[in-house]
């Protein structure tokens, strides 16, 4: 072979392969469960965001004569003990719950992934110090932190986001660190180092993408966990307060009255469960779709 090697002629079009994301999208579309889950999730988001526009009640409008009725033509989901329309309260509750879930997941994806990946890659003392910080934050009682925040900054919904975000990235950091610890032994990492690729580029271009499977799965598990934590906080009076609503709050209300008024539990509970199921299926589908080796 000599220097007469022809440079690829333009008519030799590249065999179509695609970017990781376009490829992943194509594979995701083939996964029926994941597509169905995504559709359900989309429907739920639309229901919560746009729904209240089409319901002639507001979330805090009481009608005490009309308390705790079952579903009817006027109130599709029935009314709660104070005679508020449950349909519109479920929509508003969904907004809060979805927002909390989304925010906490974004925090855990950005801080948790970067933190864990850097600790795992650099190892040694850097790793030891960074992970001890995580351990310390783990040991702080969650409630204690939230109450401290409340005392310092006063009560607000923003605080709820901050508090949940602050704890949601810890486990993600540990998971990513563990993945990176094993991935950094790979020869492709040595190859990148030998080629002169910078450390941070190795972390974010080689290690994080290869840890994407566990990251996506854990992220989809974070959403339901955070929703339940929000419910717990609200129940204690530290989160969302009536007349505002969240799914967690509605479900715990409903659970208190399930013997007499089962619809109070069934409707918000159904939506919460549907959301969590969809997230799990979508997470599974994403994990498979993001792995180029799964290509069929």
């Amino acid at each position, binding site marked *: 072979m000599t*220097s007469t090697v022809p440079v690829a002629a333009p008519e030799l079009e590249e065999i179509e392969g695609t970017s990781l994301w376009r490829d992943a999208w194509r594979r995701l579309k083939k996964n029926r469960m994941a597509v169905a889950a995504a559709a359900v999730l989309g429907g739920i988001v639309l229901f919560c965001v746009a729904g209240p526009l089409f319901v002639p009640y507001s979330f805090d409008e009481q009608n005490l004569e009309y308390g705790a009725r079952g579903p009817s033509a006027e109130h599709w989901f029935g009314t709660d003990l104070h005679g508020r329309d449950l349909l519109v309260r479920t929509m508003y509750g969904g907004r809060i719950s979805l927002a909390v879930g989304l925010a906490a997941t974004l925090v855990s994806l950005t801080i948790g992934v970067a933190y864990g990946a850097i600790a795992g890659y650099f190892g040694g003392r850097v790793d030891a110090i960074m992970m001890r910080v995580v351990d310390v934050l783990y040991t702080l009682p969650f409630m204690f932190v939230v109450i401290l925040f409340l005392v310092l900054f006063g009560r607000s919904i923003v605080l709820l986001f901050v508090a949940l975000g602050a704890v949601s990235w810890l486990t993600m950091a540990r998971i990513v660190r563990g993945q990176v610890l094993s991935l950094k032994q790979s020869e492709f990492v040595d190859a*990148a180092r030998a*080629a002169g690729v910078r450390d941070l580029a190795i972390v974010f271009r*080689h290690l994080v993408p290869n840890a994407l499977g566990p990251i996506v799965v854990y992220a989809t598990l974070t959403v339901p966990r955070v929703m339940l934590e929000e419910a717990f906080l609200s129940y204690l009076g530290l989160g969302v307060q009536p007349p505002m609503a969240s799914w967690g709050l509605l479900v715990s209300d409903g659970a208190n009255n399930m013997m007499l008024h089962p619809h109070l539990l069934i409707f918000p509970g159904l939506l919460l469960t549907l959301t969590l199921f969809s997230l799990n299926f979508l997470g599974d589908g994403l994990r498979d779709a993001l792995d180029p080796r799964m290509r069929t």
Partner: protein
Amino acid sequence: MLGRVMEEASTARPLVEVEDLRVHFPVYRGTVLKRKAAVVRAVDGVSFAIARGETLGLVGESGCGKSTTGRALMRLVPVTSGNIRFDGEDLLSLRGEVLRRKRRHFQMIFQDPYGSLDPRMTVFDIVAEPLLAHGMGGPDLRDRVQSMLERCGMNPRYIRRYPHEFSGGQRQRVAIARALILEPSFVVCDEPVSALDVSIRAQVLNLLVELQRDLGLTYLFIAHDLAAVRHVSDRIAVMYLGRIVELSPAAEIYRRPAHPYTQALISAVPIPDPRAEADRQRIVLEGDVPSPLAPPRGCRFHPRCPRFASLGAVQKARCREEEPLLRVLGDGRQVACHHVD
């Protein structure tokens, strides 16, 4: 080829000079209070030089430190002591950004083409990455990647494919393209064909030889058996337990191996002639390789040496006490044994 190389070697300075290289890995014990429990002497005093355009073969059993030597030359493992000079420059004094910039002059081809290519990157991304890392991108990046792939025997239309879509041989071609795209002058080939099917080994070896000739490369060619390096190497170094026991021109090492360990290795290579094969005298070594945690005193090979048994008491004592150094025998042969003339 050999003659030209030897000629150049005598006049010009070697491209790579290694002096008393040692790579020791500490072994820690205890979970909370870590203490150094032992030291694995993976590479323990290795010296050699490689001339420009030359191929030095490096052979030895698994665990003898040959891969670690290659990785140390690439600055991928921390070096305990010794000296590495690349093109006259002290490689071990380089740090951080200076070292990173320097890396484009020496590259490595790894053993396992299944592990050395990032499964989430396309062939294009893999081969282009070194160029981008050194700010050598530019508008003709795609053309350069494609022509390098073509040069390595890959269809350049496959640049959007992922590694798992290729066979082992094709992947190794991608790995070779990645190593050579920076136009390095020195390449460490760490058992580049041992993970491949026997049927395609020769193809890849021929490709490496061809590229060396065309691009004027200098190779350190690591392998665990002599047969693989015989045809590509100008000189061959045999390692045992972290040290070089013999370093001779490739033809000489076959014709008259000097060190008892080399003799045993050569005797294990089958001869492709049934009659000669039937008469082949095999030297079978007793026992296992001692642990590099605690290499034997004196000559590291003496507990397994077939010649040791026939020596007199005084000579035996010397083997047990005094570590033999590489000494020149003439004809360019170097051997580390007290009892070879």
